[in-house]
């Protein structure tokens, strides 16, 4: 398949691995920021193929994982109303709130629907004028344009039965939070390819310069990821710290200006709470005042729901790359994708779920995390 097979080519991958092996002289810790990248790394067994001196740690870039518990509880309260059709991306359905997940809310009679595009909600709202159609608008900058477009179009059309429950988060503040942490081990980043396809990478140039850290904007296929690793390792070995763009087929320095325009016309930046991490200033979006009539939190009066997350698992540390999924005593025991305890097990893009799905806890002869960590840090 065009645009896929060439990026999964075994010969190209082997060639890049050889170049990485000859470029790497010192041990380095790299973080891939996106959940989609983590997913590919374990799906294709990329980290097992890398030389032992390169450790990949998994970043916070899974929007499903970092959606805070209280927002999921709000979603459940809204979805349970008989006058509501609650629409969501598929993988939010299995994310547990404090009592259950949306699939269970559905089994109790709620009208919960999976949509592939937020704009499908417009169609549903037109077809069911007697119902309130609520979309769970989550995600990083990648999903923001389509989510913004839903609100913008609903306002244009005067569709009063549409609203959105917003939990949008932004990547750059999360990277800064990681770099600011006294426990940070990350020496270079594989930057978020699809986020940058929308936003461009000027923000990352500022971070790279301030923290003197290499950031390579990287794609999601095996050859992309290996090339991203090679570019980051070369920077580190040569003592450079700059933003480089591996994902040139999708990312331009200024991103997608039309998409950015719709995002900034509907959303404004605000503080957001991240599941497993806590509040980060200026790290998310909320609706602008002129669109607040479409805010589901206002429309359904769920503002009082304020669920606190009990400290049990290590997902916050996994999200920041400080520890690995199987460093957690609950991993694959009490905590599985069927009964996730923490943020990073809830979505297939979460590091814990990716490790579980691709059998990192089962794999015969797998190198232990402790062994790798000892070599690098």
């Amino acid at each position: 398949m065009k645009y896929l097979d060439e990026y999964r080519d075994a010969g190209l991958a082997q060639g890049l691995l050889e170049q990485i092996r000859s470029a790497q002289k010192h041990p380095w810790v790299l973080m891939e920021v996106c959940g989609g990248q983590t997913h590919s790394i374990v799906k294709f067994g990329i980290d097992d193929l890398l030389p032992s001196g390169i450790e990949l740690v998994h970043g916070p870039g899974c929007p499903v994982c970092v959606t805070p518990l209280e927002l999921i509880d709000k979603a459940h309260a809204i979805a349970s109303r008989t006058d509501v059709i609650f629409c969501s991306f598929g993988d939010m359905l299995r994310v547990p709130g404090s009592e259950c997940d949306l699939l269970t809310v559905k089994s109790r009679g709620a009208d919960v629907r999976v949509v592939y595009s937020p704009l499908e909600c417009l169609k549903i709202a037109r077809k069911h004028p007697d119902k309130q159609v609520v979309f769970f608008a989550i995600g990083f900058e990648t999903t923001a344009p389509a989510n913004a477009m839903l609100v913008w179009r609903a306002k244009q059309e005067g569709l009063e039965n549409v609203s959105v429950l917003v939990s949008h988060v932004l990547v750059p503040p999360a990277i800064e939070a990681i770099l600011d942490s006294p426990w940070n081990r990350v020496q270079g980043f594989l930057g978020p390819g699809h986020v940058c396809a929308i936003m461009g990478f000027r923000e990352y140039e500022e971070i790279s310069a301030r923290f003197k850290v290499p950031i390579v904007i990287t794609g999601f296929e095996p050859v992309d990821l290996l090339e991203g690793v090679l570019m980051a390792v070369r920077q580190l070995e040569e003592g450079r710290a700059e933003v480089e763009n591996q994902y040139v087929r999708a990312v331009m320095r200024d991103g997608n200006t039309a998409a950015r325009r719709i995002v900034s016309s509907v959303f404004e930046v605000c503080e957001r709470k991240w599941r497993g991490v806590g509040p980060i200033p200026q790290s998310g979006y909320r609706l602008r005042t002129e669109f607040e009539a479409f805010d589901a939190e206002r429309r359904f009066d769920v503002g009082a729901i304020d669920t606190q997350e009990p400290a049990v698992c290590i997902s916050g540390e996994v999200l920041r790359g400080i520890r690995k999924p199987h460093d957690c005593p609950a991993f694959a025991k009490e905590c599985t994708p069927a009964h996730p305890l923490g943020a990073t097990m809830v979505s297939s893009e979460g590091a814990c779920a990716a490790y579980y799905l691709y059998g990192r806890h089962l794999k015969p002869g797998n190198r232990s995390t402790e062994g790798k960590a000892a070599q690098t840090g």
Partner: protein
Amino acid sequence: MPDDKDHRVMPGGACPVALPDHKQIVLGHGSGGKLTQDLIEKIFLPNFRNDYLAQLNDQAVLDLNGSRLAFTTDSFVVTPIFFPGGDIGRLAINGTVNDLAMCGATPRFIAAAFILEEGLAADDLVRVVESMRMAAAEAGVLLVTGDTKVVNRGKGDQVFITTTGLGVLDRPVKISADEARPGDRILLSGTIGDHGMAIMSQREGLEFEGPIESDTAALHTLVAAMLEASPEIHCLRDPTRGGVATTLNEIASRSDVGMEIDGRSIPVHESVRGACEILGLDPLYVANEGKLVAVVAPEASEAVLDRMRSHPLGGDACCIGEVVAAHPRRVLVKTEIGGSRVLDVMMGEQLPRIC
């Protein structure tokens, strides 16, 4: 790397409490994955346990007065009831024929029960039934008894069909999910994921370049041809719900063996692959309705594979891997770029990923 003390003073690390086991049935209980296994192991097996049921095959092989009979039942609840490549009626006949064929039996008789929803268009029922008649004639089975019920509007979904099948095992073969042995070859009869993606693209109104059609087909003549080539076929399964991944795990688990699969060898239609990539689904977990997985003795595998390829339903047949003694009950897949991963059983339904 921080020491343990540092971990304790880390902010964050917050997470929710564990969920109790499901108190309601969720859709995932019907997915063929771990939740389905849970239902079987916790509710059905303890209540009905006997030597036949404990085999956990898709059919029971019964000894009655010296005759070996294969007996099976299956329910069909697909939405939409008409889809590219087939309909619920054809699916009901072929699915039951296949469950019989997967132990090497010749399918003979079918019983069908219809649960109709009030308001179903009579023309639609006629279309479904005519399709069943044609599928039964093609498969050489007779529909000999049945039942009809009608439920209130909203209490069903147009039409549900339950088919029960009876077949005769006239060959001295023992084909069962617990018969795989180290060294055996794992054969797949063709492309995977066609049925599941045909349904999904219809259900969600998704439009992909190039049509995706269900692969629904009766596989008993393919099985007969394979058995003519060699009786050394140890396991046969049609990878329906849960896909090839679930089937391989069931066989590995029942036979207490490991498996090593070459991910590059598994055929997937371009359109199915594209649709799966867009939705973030893995074709290995997507349902098939006209494919089989066979575990075959190594010395017989070439002959069986040749016969499969000369059969109209096995043109794309290939060897996808081998049964091994190492890592029992684990299925390892070699990836396109030479890495490896464990192919586990799905929890519930595959859900499209966000990005």
